[in-house]
């Protein structure tokens, strides 16, 4: 394998975690999170480098990465919107929020706008049922939403 594409920060983060786990493969989920933080998604060559670091077959990395919905196996937009549409949010009108966004962006759930600004997704329960409906955008939650609040939020985004 040629030059490394994951940063020194990635490797120092992993080095710090290593003594906490009795096996190296246990670092796979933390490593995938850290790698995704750097690239916004998990390009194949990044997963290959994670495989080399952990010392497992690249297929094993893909097998695990594809099991979990939060690992992005294709690029996502600058703003990754994940609308909770599970029971509590659904009871509180999440369907209208999703529909509103689909119309506004001209895309369907699971798609990214052409300018790579927005990715729209439906999410299972976010654990924000008391403040439903809720949306997770990148790392943050936005709660007690309605269409005017959502529009306000989207207008502020660059």
């Amino acid at each position, binding site marked *: 394998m040629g030059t490394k594409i994951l940063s020194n920060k990635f490797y120092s983060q992993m080095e710090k*975690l290593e003594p*906490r*786990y*009795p*096996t190296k*493969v*246990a*670092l*796979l*989920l*933390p490593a*995938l*999170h850290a790698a995704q933080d750097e690239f916004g998604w998990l390009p194949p060559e990044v997963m290959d480098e994670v495989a080399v670091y*952990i010392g497992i077959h690249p297929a094993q990395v893909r*097998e*695990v990465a594809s*099991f*979990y*919905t*939060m*690992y992005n196996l294709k690029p996502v937009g600058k703003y990754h919107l*994940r609308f909770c*549409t*599970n*029971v*509590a949010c*659904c*009871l*509180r009108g999440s369907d209208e929020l999703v529909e509103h966004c689909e119309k506004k962006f001209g895309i369907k759930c699971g798609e990214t706008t052409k300018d790579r600004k927005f990715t729209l997704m439906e*999410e*299972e*329960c*976010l*654990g*924000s*049922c*008391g*403040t*439903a409906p809720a949306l*997770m955008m990148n*790392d*943050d*939650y936005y709660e007690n939403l309605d269409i005017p609040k959502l529009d306000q939020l989207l207008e502020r985004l660059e």
Partner: protein
Amino acid sequence: MSAQSETLFIQHFKPSAKPLDYYLKSMSGYQMAKKALAMSQDDIIAEVKKSNLRGRGGAGFPTGMKWGFIPKQSKKPKYLVCNADESEPGTFKDRDIMRYTPHLLIEGMVIAAHAIGANSGFIYIRGEYVVEAKILEKAIEEAYADHYLGKNILGTEFHFDLTVHRGAGAYICGEETALLNSLEGKRGEPRVKPPFPAQAGAFGGPTIVNNVETLAAIPFIMSRGGEWFSKLGKIEKSGGTRLFCVSGHVKKPGVYELPAGSVTLRQLIYDHCGGILGDKKLKAVIPGGSSAPVLTADEIDVIVDIEPLMKIGTMLGSAGILVVSEDYCVVKLIKRITKFYAHESCGQCTPCREGCKWMEDILERIEHGHGREQDLGLLLEIADNINGKTLCALGDAAAGPVTSFVKKFRADFEAHIRGGKCPNA
């Protein structure tokens, strides 16, 4: 409104700029760990048994008894794992504990780790709780700096390392053996049991997996005793208070803390949560997260605790109470719930993998007016073919709600099938 009762957690659920300062000053932070580290493991476990603390994650298993299952003579390293996956739809209490009182959880884990003889622990937190994971990481850093974690905790011989391990979006990882696989860097697929985690859990070592609220209750038990905690509960076999998560069509959704077994569903919905939005009529209540069989408006004079709910065919689960008003389509609701289980089935067991998807498809066509008369029988048959026939409880969690919705709201399903559309639409 019922008389003011003692609460343990909820008065501390307020944004605090410095969780450690607050914890030390207002909650006698880490004094209980100090006390516990001077006690024998058996004495701590006996105290927890006396407290009648039952697991707050969903199964309600007595915590002290679970800790007692750890083999003392094991040569393999033991582990303590906190299940902070909180992904049962309708549940949002652990998030409050972690973001407002992270040190309470850490102290509970120090005590539990000492009790079971574990020197290593993990908080397995769902991937979506990014903010909460950061709060925990910062709190853990503070705890290391002040010798509440790490080597020679509080000047004793006891060592305990604690690490936050983030999940990455998989409901199934709330199931404890799936969680352990995920912790080990694998796909979150449940394991065949036995062996149970207490024998062979994380990395093959004896392991205790406890929910956030369960572990966060431990410092209170250490502080005021198992008997005191047990008496907080107003029903046999359930000690302490409970954090109820109420959501859906109530006027004041949120987390409510009340003594275990002290309140009926009706009181919770109408007295505490202000009744139904828009003063509409109540249609249905799901009392224990989306995996719990549904109740009708006539069934809410039941005490919200483990045994009373079990007696009427449902469960308390994670105490996530979902309230549905009269004008919401119950067919749409159970379709959404079933879609969730079909999406989250890990795919290992055929009845669950295939059955959930079939139930979703059938419910989808009924919802949109394309159902057939025989579909209701078919749904019940599929649910019956899943129930009890899978490695983990996800299959039962998908089947129970379908069966209960079809049986209790049959007229609504028939109206969709015969009328070709939702009668409410």
